[in-house]
């Protein structure tokens, strides 16, 4: 096979691998979609029941501007979290389910290497997840805005005021800014879960959580303080705190485009150390998958 044809087939195989994961794990897109749809419906309900006087009061007081935006933030946050959670469930099952149902013998009978398999499975929470969440948030926020504008218009209020107060382009930009960061920041956690999924025969979740639980317990009993707890908390919360609060401290939240600082965000040593760790964990998962046959 010539070089160009070879890499074309590699890319083609990668895309089909990802597609097949989406066939098998439909929750990957159904869950964030359902959450966004639910948030949109709740928003519609509250917009319908809001009184004219209440609306006027909010518009009159600049200090209450956040009340208009809060639904949009809540919908975005809930959808992102739904995407992260299905990514976790997916990662814990991705390399174990194929052994449980013996289908690993079918997958291994095809010209798809273990490296390709593991990397395409890792790409699902790291790349495909954000690519699913982003358009869902865009569409849901537009739907929410459209419905709310319609209600305002019917009530005789000026919807243009709404579009000024709720800055959708900023919301989308901030999401584009944070989603890749979250994926990279969480990469070692996903890679760890994939590794445990490849390694353990069953209950990958317990195996994935056990070492953390053990370390926390030992520290708590022996040292009476728990540095690992602090580190774990920083890692899990960091996905949101780093992109969306000033200096990642979680005290001052970003509010405008000029608050975004991609240079600081994407040069955090903790980010790239985690990516390096994730690469090592995935390498181990590839080695383990090579030796795996059905349970």
């Amino acid at each position: 096979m010539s070089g160009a044809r070879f890499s074309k087939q590699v890319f083609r195989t990668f895309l089909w691998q990802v597609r097949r994961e989406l066939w098998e794990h439909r929750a990957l897109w159904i869950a964030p979609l359902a959450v966004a749809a639910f948030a949109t419906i709740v928003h519609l309900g509250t917009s319908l029941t809001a009184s004219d006087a209440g609306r006027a009061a909010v518009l009159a007081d600049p200090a209450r501007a956040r009340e208009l935006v809060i639904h949009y933030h809540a919908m975005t946050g809930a959808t992102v979290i739904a995407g992260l959670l299905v990514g976790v469930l997916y990662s814990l099952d991705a390399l174990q389910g194929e052994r449980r149902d013996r289908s690993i013998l079918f997958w291994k009978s095809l010209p798809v290497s273990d490296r390709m398999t593991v990397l395409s499975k890792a790409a699902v929470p790291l790349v495909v997840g954000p690519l699913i969440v982003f358009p869902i948030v865009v569409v849901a926020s537009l739907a929410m805005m459209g419905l709310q504008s319609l209600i305002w218009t019917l009530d005789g209020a000026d919807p243009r005021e709404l579009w000024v107060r709720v800055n959708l382009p900023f919301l989308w930009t901030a999401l584009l800014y944070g989603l890749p960061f979250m994926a990279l920041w969480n990469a070692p956690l996903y890679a760890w879960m994939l590794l445990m999924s490849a390694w353990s025969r069953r209950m990958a979740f317990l195996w994935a959580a056990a070492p953390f639980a053990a370390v926390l317990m030992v520290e708590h009993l022996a040292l009476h303080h728990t540095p690992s707890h602090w580190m774990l908390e920083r890692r899990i919360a960091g996905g949101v705190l780093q992109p969306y609060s000033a200096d990642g401290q979680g005290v001052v939240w970003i509010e405008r485009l000029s608050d975004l600082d991609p240079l600081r965000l994407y040069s955090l040593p903790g980010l790239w150390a985690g990516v390096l760790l994730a690469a090592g964990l995935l390498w181990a998962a590839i080695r383990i998958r090579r030796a795996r046959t059905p349970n």
Partner: protein
Amino acid sequence: MAVVEARNLRKTYRKTQALDGVDLSIGEGRIVGLLGPNGAGKSTALQAILGLVSHEGELRVLGRDPWRERGELMHEVCFIADVAVLPRWMRVSQTLDYMAGVHPRFDRARAEGFLARTTIRSDSRIRELSKGMVTQLHLALVMAVDARLLVLDEPTLGLDLLYRKQFFDALLSDYVDHSRTILLSTHDVHEIQHVLTDVIFLDRGRVALSASMEDIEARFVEVLTTDDRLAAARVLKPVAERRMFGRTSLLFDGEDRGRLAALGEVRSPSLADLFIALLGETGPREAAA
């Protein structure tokens, strides 16, 4: 170049020696039956050839090391390992889409042609199909791949007689040609006898016999003899002996047929007879590996 070449192939699972120095050489276009009792190492040998388990000793399949190069090897090797390994959540049409996507040598129209002869609907999920239909589907997928080596590990296990017959008929009429090599393991010695060009008997991780069907035909002779001629027959050193209906059946390896005819009724043993004669009296075995 041999399609499969193994020298002193060994595999140990904890305390069980599954393969204990196996030498194999399988040429292009052969249809080879790998036979042996449970725990003889058939599955392990096939798994090593397919790159599913690590091994010691030398092993080349189509010139590649299967353990290190499985992904590449599977361009030219197909296998049906065990039964019912197709993902149960998948739709029949999805299996075709996916195969066409990842396998450059998969001919979708050919697979659809095979499926058209069955009652399998393309919008069915695999979990809705019967065991026999799943095997038909898997065979259709595999036969639509232009592969050089097809490996089948107990492909008809658990199927009824009708499906078993269909399976081998389809394989023979639509797949076999001189450039394709088939390696298959099975318990059903009877059913595949007429299909094979070569047999390899494995026993406790070793090759007990490796020969072409012509060789076997030429070498092995079974003689049914009466008690009065038994002593004279034993002088010729039979490789196996068993009593049946007041007479004794003796198996000879490489003995002159004319000479044996004087001792009793002479016939060519079936593969099943050979299997029992050569592997049947070797004492208790380890549990299946």
